[in-house]
Each structure stands twice: as structure tokens, then as C-alpha cells.
């Protein structure tokens, strides 16, 4: 889960990591006052949870409070990359001598936290990793032990720092690691981390994403993902894994891998899947009901495919949920159900009694659903 730059910045401040002077503002007048108070050139940064905001006009320099005001008037309320800007961060513009990168992420294969540092900050690290990988310093940190000061120091010397810069880097590195752990982050970085004229360091940007599974420990940061469609938000609120796609065949299944495969198989037979909807394991009648309701809210759906392989999930629960949802929604498109596994017979009995057609094989069912979707047109 992404959190806003201003929230990450607040965490940096709480841990005494130097950041440029700045204020979070919700209207243009506040921006003018903030710029006047800072009394130096400022940067106005749109607080939206999306990458590439700079290139899309979400980050602008102002040399006077009036200029900041005018930028803010344009920016606040505007839509950048599909997201409405409701607040901006106004910070002192700092001209760095040099820009560094520092960040922590998780290495899946090594089961470790990775410290990443580079003498080349302010650029896209993914690009740098491809063009000049030797400029990126990586060190895996044992999560049982944590980051030792010596490891932060090694990183500092390895990217060519010395004296005050090396000491500042070491200290900032340790603090970002503390933040990384304290909020259950899966990414915490500063890019760029600027070196100033006197060798001191200041974090010009701060970016943190939290582990979705740990949000229950950090409710204060809970954030609706602004990039989600309204329907995706509704599905997430109902605890369903739901992703909208471009097609017209609704897909519901139990288990992420199975639903992904269902989509692939439907596409293989020439269908265009409209969505990914995983009800998860152990779905109740209620969750099946909600899944179908949400899936059917998609406009221009031409067919619905429900693919159930019961393990934890019980086929009779699914059947009951399906029956209830279909009755309420007065379904006008063809539905194909594939249902095998736990309580298969009970489930099929319920479907039969309610006149719902079912199949045994996923592939046969996928072919059938594609046919049913497009032959009606």
C-alpha cells in the first residue's frame, strides 16, 4: 500500500532525518503563505499516489510566493494521470552538489531486506540498474538481526562518500531502516538524497509503501488506492481480489492461480476477459453473493464464467451464493459454471434445482463461455 509523500516525510521528520523545510497545503492561499514563510524558492509537489508525477506536471518550481500561488491555483483540483490533486507539499528548493539514492526493499529469493545505495540519485533506479548496474550498491540484511551501523558505513564508503557525508549517510540509512521496520514497509527510499555544499545530507524526496498484509498494524496509514476504479474499490471493501481488464467476459473463481489460468484459457479460446475476481479460499455463501454482484456491475458484460475447484471452498456454499445473486440481479447474460471438488454433489444439486448449467472441465467450460458470449451478438 502506497502512502503519500507527505506521510513518508512526516515519518522521516519523526526519526530526525533532515528534510527541506516545507508544509502540506490544501489550497492555493496556504501555498502562498507557505512559500512566503519559507522565503526562498520553493517546489510545489502534487500529493498523488502515482509514479511519474514529475513528468506529468505534478512537480513545479516557484521563485516567489506569487508564482507558487499561481502554480497551486492550476495544480490543486487538477487531474494528473487520472487522479485529482487535493493537496500539495510546498518545500524549500535545494540545489544539491550531488544527488544520491538510498532505499530498502525485500529480496524474495534471498528472504532478506536489501539495502540499495547509489552515488547516482535523482534518476530512475530501474533504468540505472540496466544501464550502469555497477553504480548500484546492494547488501542483503538478515531480518533476524537487523541493520548494523557498520553495514550502513560500508555502504557510505562504497558509494564514494567520506567525512561528514559518510557520517550523515550512515545515520540516515539506519533511520530509514528503522522506519522500514516500524511501519512494515516493503519499500522505503529517498531519491534523491541530496549532498549540500557543506557535505551534509538532506532527503529531497521520501517514498514508502507498506505491506498490504500488515496494514492491520498500521491503521493510521490506511489509504484507499487512488489508482483503483470505483468498482475495484467496492470489491476491495468487500474483501475480494478484483482487477478490471479490458474485455467483456466476467470471470469469477476461487484461488488466484486458478483465476489467472481461467483468464488465460478464456483468452486462448478467443474470449476477452473483463476482470479478475478471486473469491479466495473458504468463501462463504455471502462472499460468493457479493462477488457475483460486483462482477455483474460491469457494464457491457457479454457472459459470466464461474470456475470453482473446491478445496477449502465448498461447492454447496458457492451454489447457494450464486443462486441468491442471480435471482436478485435478474441475469440477462449467459452464465457458465464449472464446479468440482469439495461437496461437489450437493453444489450441483442446488444448481440443477435452480436451472443453472454446469460443466466438469475448465477448458470445455471456457470454450463454451466464449461461444455463449459472442454468438448472441
Amino acid at each position: 500500500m502506497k502512502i503519500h509523500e507527505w506521510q513518508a516525510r512526516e515519518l522521516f521528520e519523526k526519526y530526525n532525518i533532515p528534510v527541506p523545510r516545507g508544509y502540506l497545503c490544501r489550497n492555493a492561499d496556504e501555498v502562498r503563505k507557505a512559500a512566503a514563510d519559507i522565503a526562498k524558492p520553493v517546489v510545489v509537489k502534487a500529493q498523488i499516489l502515482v509514479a511519474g508525477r514529475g513528468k506529468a506536471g505534478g512537480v513545479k518550481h516557484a521563485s516567489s510566493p506569487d508564482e507558487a500561488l499561481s502554480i497551486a491555483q492550476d495544480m490543486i483540483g487538477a487531474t494528473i494521470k487520472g487522479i485529482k490533486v487535493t493537496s500539495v507539499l510546498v518545500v524549500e528548493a535545494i540545489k544539491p552538489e550531488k544527488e544520491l539514492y538510498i532505499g530498502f526493499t525485500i529480496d524474495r529469493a534471498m528472504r532478506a531486506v536489501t539495502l540499495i545505495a547509489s552515488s547516482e540519485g535523482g534518476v530512475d533506479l530501474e533504468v540505472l540498474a540496466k544501464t550502469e548496474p555497477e553504480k548500484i550498491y546492494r547488501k542483503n540484511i538478515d531480518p533476524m538481526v537487523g541493520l548494523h551501523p557498520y553495514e550502513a558505513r560500508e555502504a557510505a564508503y562504497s558509494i564514494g562518500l567520506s567525512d561528514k557525508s559518510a557520517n550523515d549517510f550512515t545515520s540516515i540509512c539506519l533511520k530509514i531502516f528503522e522506519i522500514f521496520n516500524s511501519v512494515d514497509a516493503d519499500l522505503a527510499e529517498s531519491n534523491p538524497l541530496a549532498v549540500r555544499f557543506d557535505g551534509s545530507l538532506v532527503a529531497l524526496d521520501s517514498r514508502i509503501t507498506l505491506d498490504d498484509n500488515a496494514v492491520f498494524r498500521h491503521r493510521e496509514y490506511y489509504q484507499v488506492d487512488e489508482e483503483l476504479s470505483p468498482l475495484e474499490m467496492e470489491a476491495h471493501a468487500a474483501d475480494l481480489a478484483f482487477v478490471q481488464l479490458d474485455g467483456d467476459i466476467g470471470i469469477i473463481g476461487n484461488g488466484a492461480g486458478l483465476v489467472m489460468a481461467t483468464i488465460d484459457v478464456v483468452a486462448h479460446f478467443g474470449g476477452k476477459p473483463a476482470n479478475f475476481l478471486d473469491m479466495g479460499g473458504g468463501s462463504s455463501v455471502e462472499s460468493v453473493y457479493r462477488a457475483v454482484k460486483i462482477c455483474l456491475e460491469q457494464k457491457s458484460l457479454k457472459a459470466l464464467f464461474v470456475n470453482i475447484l473446491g478445496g477449502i471452498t465448498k461447492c454447496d456454499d458457492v451454489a447457494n451464493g450464486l443462486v441468491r445473486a442471480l435471482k436478485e440481479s435478474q441475469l440477462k447474460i449467459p452464465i457458465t459454471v464449472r464446479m468440482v471438488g469439495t461437496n461437489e454433489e450437493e453444489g450441483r444439486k442446488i444448481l440443477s434445482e435452480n436451472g443453472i448449467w454446469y460443466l466438469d472441465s475448465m477448458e470445455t467450460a471456457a470454450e463454451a463461455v466464449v461461444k455463449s458470449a459472442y454468438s448472441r451478438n
Partner: protein
Amino acid sequence: MTILVDKSTKVLVQGATGREGSSHTLAMLKYGTNVVAGVTPGKSGSNIGGVPIYNTVKQAVSEHPEINSSIIFVPAPYNADAVYEALDSGMKLIVDITEHVPVHDSLEFVNYARNKGVTIIGPNCPGVISPGDCKLGIMPGQIFSKGNVGIVSRSGTLTYEIAWVLTKAGLGQSTAVGVGGDPIVGRDTVEIIEMFEGDPETKALVVIGEIGGDAEERLALRIRQVGVKKPIVSFIAGRQAPPGKRMGHAGAIISMGSGSAGGKIKALEASGVPVAELPSQIPVLISKSMRQ
């Protein structure tokens, strides 16, 4: 022989009295799994289908010293504690079924387990089954059949799908392992393949992958570098998945242009591993690869 579980597996169920815990305790018993005891704090003295429940793992193990494996159904906020309780009680194998475990928790207990030499499967996994011998998981047992195909999978229901296809084609399984759909798992695809390589019962391998991470790419690299002793075929889910979107599993996301199904398929095929487009093609590919 099979890997991870067999007739000698003596099982403890942690979180045995919860909804999932109790129903799968009964299902495992029904399958013939040697479920010896269960644990739920405060429920000592009760039982699930005749399986005695204890307050602590220590108590269970002292009453039933034959216990060597544990399966965990303890909700995410308390899951790590349950894993440590198992890890510190002499288990050789821990299957962690629970989903939504915070990654900082699993990072820590997975490292702790590795230092201790204990095998964790999961979290967020369907478990392990050696058909006919032992089911330590939540998979529907009737779908699997005894045989010589080893399955390793990052998915649950997709594993059942493919096991079903294999079973219908007369290709039984030695062991099927669901490694789990989280970014951090106790044993990953490559490590399970290494176990299967040492198992005489297993003659061919099916790798069920999905988008996200680089487990399949690392497997492909390993095959190129040191080879693999047994034929492998694969199925990768998520060819149609859009980048940047988490597809159900915490680990299933194409980020920064890496972890796509296309990339994985390309890597595997470049290492000589045939990748099926449809589950139904897998039996054919296996038969072909075993003939070579």
C-alpha cells in the same frame, strides 16, 4: 519414497479448533493422515474427531513425542507466534496454511527456520500431499492419485486443477507441494525441485508458476547452469495479467517490467522446459518428455 511427507509423518494441528482448523483436521483424518494432536490456547481437554487438544505445543509434544510435523491454521496476526512455537518444539516440517501473514513476520521466521534446519512450507499455501500416504494440507484428496509425477506450485486451486488433469490421464503423483503465493515462502520452487531430484519415486516434474518474483527464472538459470536430473514441464498462469496489478496473491504482481508470464515462459523454454498453454496439454508434454 516421496518428499516431505509420508506414512511416518505424525501431525500436530495448530489452531485446531477454529473453523478451518477443525474442518481440515477432520478431512486429513479421513484421508488417513496421522493427526496426533491439536493445539488451541485455552481449549486443553477438548477434542476434534477424537484428536486431543492442548493449550500449548510443548504440552502436546510432551504427551505425544512422536509428533514431527505441524500444520498451522492460526490467523495472520498470531501466525508468527504459532510458527515459532512449532519451530522451537522440534518439528522437522511446518506447513503454514494461513494467508495474509505480514511479510516482515515471514521474513523473520523463515530465516530463523533456515538457521535451525527446519523446513517451512508456506505461508499462504495449500500444503503438501503424497497421495495415498499423507495429506498435510487443505487440498481435496480425491483429486490426487499415487504415482511418479512430482508437482511444485505457487498456487492452490490451480494445483488441484492440474493434479486432476494428471489423475484423469492416468499419471499419478509422488508428492504435490504448494509452496505458497506470498513473496516470502519457506521453500521456493527451486528448492522443492532440488528435493524432488533426490527422490527415486519421482520420475517427472510439473512446475506450476505464476507472475511475480523470479522463482521460475531462477529455476531456468539453474537448469542452464547445472542441469536437472528429471524431465520438467511447466504451466505459467497470468499471461493476460496487466502490469502493476496484484492478482490475488501477495506475490503475484508484475512490477517494474519484471515477473511477467512471458518472461518466465521464455526463460523456461530457453532452458528446454516445455510450457503448456492449457492444463490439458500437461499430460501429453510429460509423456513426451519421459520418452526422450
